[in-house]
């Protein structure tokens, strides 16, 4: 770890105040840890431990001005930075030994809820559950990423992926971005969309003035702090899907949720992927679902369990081959009834059997978890570790191709006893915006304490990336950093050259840690000067 000189330390203290900066080894090491870091390390041929290189400092700014000051300090003192909000995942960790962490925890305000124009303005540390609970008072709802209601909505919107379980009705984070306040790597504050207007700036639009920079800001998956720090964002909000009653009784772990009016689950086994594709397409064309996900039997059982024992108990669900889980909701009785009738029609048309209420009754708290987008964390209950090996937003046909292609590949690692045996089938696929697009993630369950397992899941991720490249299955979720972009780019219209140009313009001296994005200059090969 690099030692920070006295002047840099003083400058950081000056930027955020003494109590909001730490150079202490114990604190820095905590910021070097993350879930999935062990897999990333393994993928890069390093020891498969969950620690990255530690940051040289951690700062906790409270304002945009302070963020800007920190970035200017980085430039002056030859430091890089990695900004994080709620901080889940290895893309929050430094990749350089001169990196500071900007922890945006103290920027946690909901600045505005515009009921009439359906948007909310938030700072980085506002979680999904926090915003949703405030929006509910207005009869509104927000989109949350699949990672769960505990994560930052701003980070998902501006910087990192963003499909979620309610994507059929709430889109995905990158599509919901309106006005943005963006501190560029060298400290300049840029305002995107209608926020940049010189007269009556407001948050309602993400495009303009002049050419839209939304694509430059995050592209499809986001720059993961590789192009600056986002300090405020306006996001689209949506009508709350059903009645806003929210009553939970009982004590952990047996919470009972009083199911609000106008929400119901449907789940059926489509048996084959082709049929699953047709059914999902039909449900989405009908524009009736709040949530519509294709899972594996094992995954579906996990959604309704809070322990592995609970998963094993749910044989009815776990043995399903291609289960589709749908939540139908309605703002009014009439809307709910209409949607249910359409759903029944589709069940009949495709000769499906709805297991909900007949063979399986979901725990009442599952309805709360569906609304609150809390299913993602259920992925960890079986083995402790879960990783999306492939993830991309594509057409449903492509998603099915990815699903099928991953089965034999994953089985190779299952056979080596490195990944838990889900028959190779564990995927999560959801429609986005009523079938406008779909998301697919091939999940691999692994044990993060077992080196054999970690190296296996890392190998699976590498192979999966290669398979996507050579079998034309789209660009996966975790193509990050120079090495992978330079590998994928030449096969994909040389997109990496454009990405690098963006980085060159925004951050020519590479102040923003490029580890999960791209460097402004092509990485030099060993021995190259």
């Amino acid at each position, binding site marked *: 770890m690099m030692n920070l000189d006295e002047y840099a330390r003083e400058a950081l203290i000056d930027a955020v105040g003494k109590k909001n900066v*730490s150079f202490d*080894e*114990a*604190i820095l*090491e*905590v*910021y070097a*840890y993350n*879930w999935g870091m062990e897999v990333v390390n393994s993928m890069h041929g390093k020891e498969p*431990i*969950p*620690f990255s290189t530690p940051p040289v400092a951690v700062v*906790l700014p409270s304002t945009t001005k302070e963020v800007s000051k920190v970035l200017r300090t980085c430039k002056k003192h030859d430091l890089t930075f990695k900004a994080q909000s709620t*901080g*889940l*995942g290895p893309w929050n960790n430094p990749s350089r030994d001169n990196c500071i962490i900007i*922890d945006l*925890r*103290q920027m946690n305000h*909901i600045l505005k809820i515009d009921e009439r124009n359906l948007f909310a303005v938030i700072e980085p540390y*506002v979680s999904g*559950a*926090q915003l949703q*609970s*405030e929006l509910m008072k207005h009869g509104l709802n927000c989109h949350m990423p699949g990672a*769960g*209601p*505990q994560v930052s909505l701003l980070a998902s919107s501006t910087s990192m992926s963003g499909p979620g379980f309610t994507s059929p009705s709430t889109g995905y984070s990158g599509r919901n971005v309106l006005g943005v306040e963006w501190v560029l790597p060298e400290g300049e504050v840029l305002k995107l969309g209608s926020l940049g207007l010189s007269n009556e700036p407001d948050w309602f639009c993400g495009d303009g003035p002049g050419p839209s920079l939304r694509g430059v800001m995050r592209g499809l998956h986001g720059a993961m702090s590789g192009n600056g720090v986002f300090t405020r964002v306006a996001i689209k909000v949506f009508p709350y899907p059903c009645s806003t009653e*929210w009553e*939970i009784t009982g*004590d*952990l*772990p*047996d*919470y009972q*949720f009083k199911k609000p009016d106008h929400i119901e689950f449907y789940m059926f086994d489509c048996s084959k992927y082709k049929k699953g594709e047709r059914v999902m397409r039909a449900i989405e064309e009908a524009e009736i679902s709040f949530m519509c996900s294709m899972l594996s039997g094992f995954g579906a059982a996990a959604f309704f369990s*809070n*322990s*592995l*024992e609970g998963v094993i108990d749910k044989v009815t669900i776990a043995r399903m081959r291609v289960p589709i889980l749908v939540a139908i909701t309605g703002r009014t009785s009439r809307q709910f009834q209409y949607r249910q009738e359409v759903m029944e029609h589709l069940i009949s048309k495709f000769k499906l059997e709805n297991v909900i209420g007949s063979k399986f009754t979901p725990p009442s*708290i599952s309805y709360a*978890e569906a609304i*609150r987008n*809390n299913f993602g*964390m*259920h992925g*960890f*209950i079986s*083995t*402790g*570790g879960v990783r999306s090996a492939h993830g991309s937003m594509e057409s449903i046909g492509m998603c099915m191709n990815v699903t099928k292609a991953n089965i034999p590949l994953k089985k190779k690692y*299952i056979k080596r*006893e*490195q*990944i*838990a045996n889900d028959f190779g089938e564990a995927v999560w696929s959801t429609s986005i915006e009523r079938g406008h697009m779909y998301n697919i993630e091939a999940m691999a*369950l692994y*044990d*993060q*304490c077992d080196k054999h397992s970690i190296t296996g899941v890392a190998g699976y991720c590498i192979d999966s990336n290669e398979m996507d490249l050579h079998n034309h299955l789209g660009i996966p979720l975790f193509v990050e950093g120079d090495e992978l972009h330079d590998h994928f780019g030449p096969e994909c219209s040389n997109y990496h050259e454009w990405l690098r140009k963006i980085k060159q313009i925004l951050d020519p001296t590479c102040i923003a840690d490029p580890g999960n994005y791209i460097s402004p200059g092509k990485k030099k090969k060993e021995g190259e000067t």
Partner: protein
Amino acid sequence: MLKSEYENMINRCVRCSICKWIPQVQIKNQEHASICPSIDFYNFHSHSGGGRIILALALEMGRVEMNEKVRDIVFQCTACGGCSIACQYLNTLDPTEVIMDLRRKLVQEGVGPMPKHQAFMDNVIQSGNPYGEPRKARAEWLEEGIEIDDSAETLYFVGCTSSYRRKEIARATAKVLNKAGLAFKILGSDETCCGSPLFRTGEDDQFEKIVERNVAMIEKAGIETVVCSCAGCFDMFRVEYPERASFSFNVISTAELFNRLIDEGRLKTGAGKDITVTYHDPCHLGRQAEVHEHWEGDVIEVMPIMKLNIPEKPKRCGAGGVYDAPRNVLEKLNNITLVEMDRIREYSYCCGAGGGAKAAFPEFALHTGKTRISEAESTGATCVISACPFCSTNLKDSIKESESSMDFKDLGELVLESLGRDEKNFDGMKEDMEGKHDES
């Protein structure tokens, strides 16, 4: 916690930050979404339940040395158990247990506890209480009119804080028991600290000696039931003592006992003023008061990587705490209207005093207490009720510091008020009801 369990746990944090919040489905608004006083005050991730698990791993891997900074991080926590509840909603980690283990390790290594803690540890060992007060003054809270029955089989274990600092709680408890006609005795100057301050700050060896001493003394006195008006003492007697000693007496909190006495018609309530109150669940009467359920079984590898516990391992997520009894008492006091805060029961927000925070980090404790008082104010209640002298101290300090108009009362004081006056206890009650509490 077994070494193997500890090692397993410190390797399994997924850094999801769930430990910083109340269970996600319980979040009702932005302001009252947090469950962790430590991260709320110190803000660095190291100061969350998960952060401390990572720190434990970094120590185990030799990435960090055990030093004073590590000690500070580990002790800048009220050990309220909130992070564990949040994590156990879906996961299986218990950050509070890891924190307690770290504290014990720090003490063993001579790095911990905090200097302030060392002083009260020494006091407990020398004087039987953390305040360094003389043993002979322990029963000075007793006042004329309170009847003690030395032949009783019920022991009122007063505790250090009620004996020396929150005497009004001890008096109210004794008077209520008198009114119910429940004969009880006290240990007086023979009573020694329950050991909670030692246990919470990692001084396990001394704690075990105290357990041994107290259990022997109570057993020898032929006690059937120990009554605790202090949540900290109650937690020790109900949860931690059975881990270290076997004994035949029962342990009951005043909240549970008052509830029972009202149900049995032994307390005639309804005499107090009409007030709207809110109830603060003390961590040690609530989630921390759930007994350890020891698991015995087999770990079966149902398939490679996937291990199943047979039978299923119970989760300690606070459901076994005392939540209904105090609420039932409030409901049965006819003149009381209870309005709940957003964070209650197993996901209650800590008062800020526990885990040695009040002694070593008073600013942190006060910040937490003020946060809780602000939440209490938001209910529209005019009075906070709780059932712990330590919560009482910090919440009263917080009320004063935040210039709040809220009142604070222990459950015992409120019950006493609702019983009305009688000649025998009139003077003492008058003093209690006018709020002339002993702040010494």
